[in-house]
């Protein structure tokens, strides 16, 4: 067992992947600069410029060239500096990467991993603080991975490299320094399998990415009040593990879904509606949802903090729905 930070876990996954000579990495400033979030620091020296390629600032062709080289039998890993800039490449991601297998009825596959950085909280203001994982999760043909711990990041990354489909792998910028244990022995984490990060009988908190840690904080606060919360980290949004969620709700009868992106149109709406469709009679009250406040991210730190879900807001939502 080794302790490492999430950044190191992703780097470990990348190094392992590069053992396969069909794999290469490309993206903006991943080589000479060492990566905007330092994930690929040292990679250029280690693997050389043919495997670690600095690209121009051209997200569309970064993803598109990834799609093309994947069609031709390579296994590219492309990095989009942040998910905000993925909007420049969204046509390649949604109209091309996600569709080619289906439209060719299986003649082609696109084994492409798109790594990107998501989330707010760094006072980077409205254009640089967004979380669009939920948008991509609505696209058939894509898979969306949202790890919350070093262990999950590595295990899910290994699966991503084997999966053979276009995958959006979204790492939260504020989690790169997060520590956790990672086994020395090989393991993988399947997609569509949520992780129960804490078990409890009184209430279910469903979250993903950084909000998993907010959920755990809320659970700790609930414990002080004598309630045991079950914290479920979805880990992947497409596919997502409704069985684990439903099972937990059937036990606790109370559930809150937490995510960082704007509440309107958030993935929590999908989770909440599934719960009410399939476990309506098990609920003691309406499914609670906590999301980002529906405003663009303000620069000022106090205002920005007020837009992002906190443990206190999770407790408030539970109180509103279930009076606890």
């Amino acid at each position, binding site marked *: 067992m080794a302790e490492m930070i999430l950044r190191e876990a992703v780097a470990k996954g990348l190094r392992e992947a590069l053992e396969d000579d069909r794999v290469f990495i490309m993206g903006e400033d991943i080589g000479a600069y060492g990566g905007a979030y330092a994930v690929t620091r040292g990679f250029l020296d280690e693997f050389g410029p043919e495997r670690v390629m600095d690209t121009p600032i051209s997200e569309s062709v970064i993803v598109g060239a990834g799609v093309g080289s994947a069609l031709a039998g390579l296994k590219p890993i492309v990095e989009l500096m942040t998910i905000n800039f993925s909007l420049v490449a969204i046509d390649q991601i949604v109209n091309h990467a996600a569709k080619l297998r289906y439209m060719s009825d299986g003649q082609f596959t696109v084994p492409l991993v798109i790594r990107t950085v998501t989330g707010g909280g760094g006072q980077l*203001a*409205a254009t640089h603080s967004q979380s669009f994982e939920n948008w991509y999760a609505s696209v058939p043909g894509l898979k969306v991975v949202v790890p919350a711990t070093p262990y999950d990041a590595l295990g899910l990354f290994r699966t991503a490299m084997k999966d053979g489909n276009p995958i959006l792998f979204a790492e939260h910028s504020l989690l790169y320094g997060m520590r956790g244990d990672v086994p020395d022995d090989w393991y993988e984490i399947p997609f569509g399998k949520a992780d129960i990060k804490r078990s409890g009988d009184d209430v279910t908190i469903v979250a993903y990415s950084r909000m998993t840690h907010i959920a755990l904080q809320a659970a700790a606060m609930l414990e002080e009040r004598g309630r045991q919360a079950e914290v479920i980290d979805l880990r992947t949004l497409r596919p997502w593990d409704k069985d684990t969620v439903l099972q937990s709700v059937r036990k606790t009868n109370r559930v809150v879904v937490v995510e960082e992106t704007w509440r309107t149109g958030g993935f929590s709406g999908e989770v909440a509606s599934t719960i009410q469709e399939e476990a309506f009679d098990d609920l003691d009250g309406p499914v609670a949802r906590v999301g980002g406040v529906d405003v663009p991210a303000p620069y*000022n730190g106090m205002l920005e903090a007020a837009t992002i879900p906190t443990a206190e807001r999770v407790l408030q939502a539970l109180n509103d729905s279930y009076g606890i």
Partner: protein
Amino acid sequence: MESTLNKQQLAEFYRQMLLIRRFEEACGRLYMQGKIRGFLHLYIGEEAIAVGTMAALRPDDYVIGHYRDHGHAIAKGMDTKIAMAELCGKATGSSGGKGGSMHLFDSKKHFMGGHAIVAGQMPIAAGLALASKYRKEDRITVCFFGDGAVNQGEFHETLNLASVWKLPVLFLLENNLYGMGTHVDRSRAGGRHIYEAAAAYDIPGVQINGMDVLGMNECVSETVKSMRKDGGPRFIEAMCYRYRGHSMADPTMYRERDEAEELGIKDPIESLKNFMLQFEIVDDGELAEINAKVEAEISDAVQFAEDSPTPDLDAMYRNVYA
């Protein structure tokens, strides 16, 4: 260096460049103190471009640019107090503390913003110019962008549209040789003569020394004069150098410390100062006076920003919609 400008004009160029330089240095200090946060991109070394360009414009001309925007905003007339307050996230800032360093705006000065998605400002520049043409006004739009932006589709789409529709956009490329840590030689085919790309869109283009405020001003003045006549787009590539890292978070591991010296890059402010002293346009006493005035303005701006209130929580809901 040579010039047909009078003493007041030269001294004013010097004052404005120094003002931007000292403003940026103050920002660097406030960032280290944690009073400015997020991303902070300094304009140090590139002052001559903003100052030389704006002096050639009318107040009603539009200016739009990228996130390295403090110099553009100040040269277009934004008050250093409200710019600094914005950087500090204060209620008195240009956007009430909601925009921050990368997103300065000043509608009264027709400064249409710092835009933080690379090349995202370029299509908007076409729209500003389209509005001028539509209304049969002879206003022009100056669009600043970096060497990194020219590899985005939006750059090409905008040049093409501006050319076929004859839109009065002055494309002003600040080629400082780097997009973050990536040298133009590694990211752009023909990265040291990007102005030639304009020819592919039938847009007249030139390359000039962006570290020379007088040359900058003369070139933009001539260009703007001809644009007001024919209404069509132009392209200027200003070669320059970013003395600091890309942002405060950049340890600049990808280039040699003495690269600027190797390249024979000359500080634009020093150059103008030496020119003015050499030809006895100003004396040391007059320079000292300008310095003192600039220092005072910057310390007032910092003081104002620090003393200003933080926005109330309700500010976060304001202006999502009209």
